[in-house]
């Protein structure tokens, strides 16, 4: 049972708007949004940010889902891992690409490009010590990704530090995030 009541039928206008944003994007209201429902400001801004992250961006959504899985593992987060495995598969990632994000398997996996591996190195280092991300990590990333993509990737990684910590601290179960299978494009 989550630490706070999940609000099923909000009466506050701002919370209702957050639920509308969630329903439009996810086809349903995720439990995380419901768990934040007793605080209109937090419910609205976190839901809006969350929905912005889970879509096609300057980085493909399919790869973003692998980055999310790697991030949740790097911070030992349990929140929504299964839901993101499902989304990653729906977006076309093979079982190998989903499974090999675990521990150090990605470093020797033939299923990722060098550009993708450079991002996984960043994820792991942010999990260990974000103050210690040096040129050895940034240079390979800059060789493959634009500044805009770098900001998006860094925001995605750290967003899921936030989302993972919030979900885990409040004890939110999230077996599904989208009502229907998702697709890219």
């Amino acid at each position, binding site marked *: 049972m989550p630490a706070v009541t999940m609000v099923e039928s909000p009466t506050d206008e701002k919370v209702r708007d957050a639920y509308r944003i969630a329903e439009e994007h996810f086809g349903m209201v995720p439990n995380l949004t419901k768990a*934040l429902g007793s605080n209109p400001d937090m419910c609205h801004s976190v839901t809006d940010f969350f929905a912005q992250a889970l879509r096609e*961006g300057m980085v493909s959504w399919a790869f973003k889902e692998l980055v999310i899985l790697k991030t949740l593992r790097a911070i030992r987060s349990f929140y929504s891992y299964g839901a993101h495995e499902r989304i990653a598969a729906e977006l076309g990632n093979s079982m190998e690409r989903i499974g090999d994000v675990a521990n150090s398997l990605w470093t020797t996996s033939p299923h990722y490009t060098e550009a993708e591996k450079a991002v996984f190195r960043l994820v792991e280092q942010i999990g260990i010590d974000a103050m210690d*991300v040096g040129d050895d990590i940034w240079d390979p990333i800059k060789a493959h990704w634009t500044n805009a993509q770098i900001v998006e990737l860094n925001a995605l990684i750290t967003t899921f530090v936030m989302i993972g910590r919030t979900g885990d*601290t409040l004890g939110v179960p999230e077996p599904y995030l989208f009502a229907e299978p998702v697709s890219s494009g």
Partner: protein
Amino acid sequence: MATIPYIEPEDADPITAQVYEDAEARFQMLLNIFKVTGHAPEMGQKMWQIFFDILQEGPKLDWYTKELLILKATKMGDCLYCVTQHEIVSAREGVSEEQQRDIVGVEYRTSPHFTEAEKAILDLCSYAVLDPEEIPPEVWMRVKEHYDDGQIVEIVTTIAAYLQVSKFGDALGVELEPVFHGHQPILFAEEPPKSAAAQRHLDHFLAQAPTS
């Protein structure tokens, strides 16, 4: 120097320009960390809205209480950028120097400068940062004795959001603005950074001459 260039106001697109304007109105200056998100305007706009919502007197939770959580969470992450800025902001919101000194490590638990309610949420913060899976029932019991659901949501979101933004800025090497040069961070004087990299950043910052 940050890993990627800052987007200065004159080069900002309309979405980012509005974020910069809001940030300057709120913080009386445009902080460097805003300038990196100019590369990804829509993402930046939605990300910063969370912080605009946190950094104010809330209908659910006062700004002073949120500053306690921000100091605790960002100090645990060795974030020089956040700790330095929020030592100044938290003092403005009523956090005393004694509280700043005692918030490090587990000092707050026996400090006479915190209420029982504050000690409960600082405990929650410590567990949330280190490992939420280990939060004991007695911590939740003490938190719920003093705070309702809406407040708990804001407490947890504030902790998690500051973990996010501190890692976001630190990974990109966002630098403290010259206006902070000369400030001697109290929390790091009480408890040095845990990581060697964070100590290097602190030494570099302390070597900067104060701006006049």
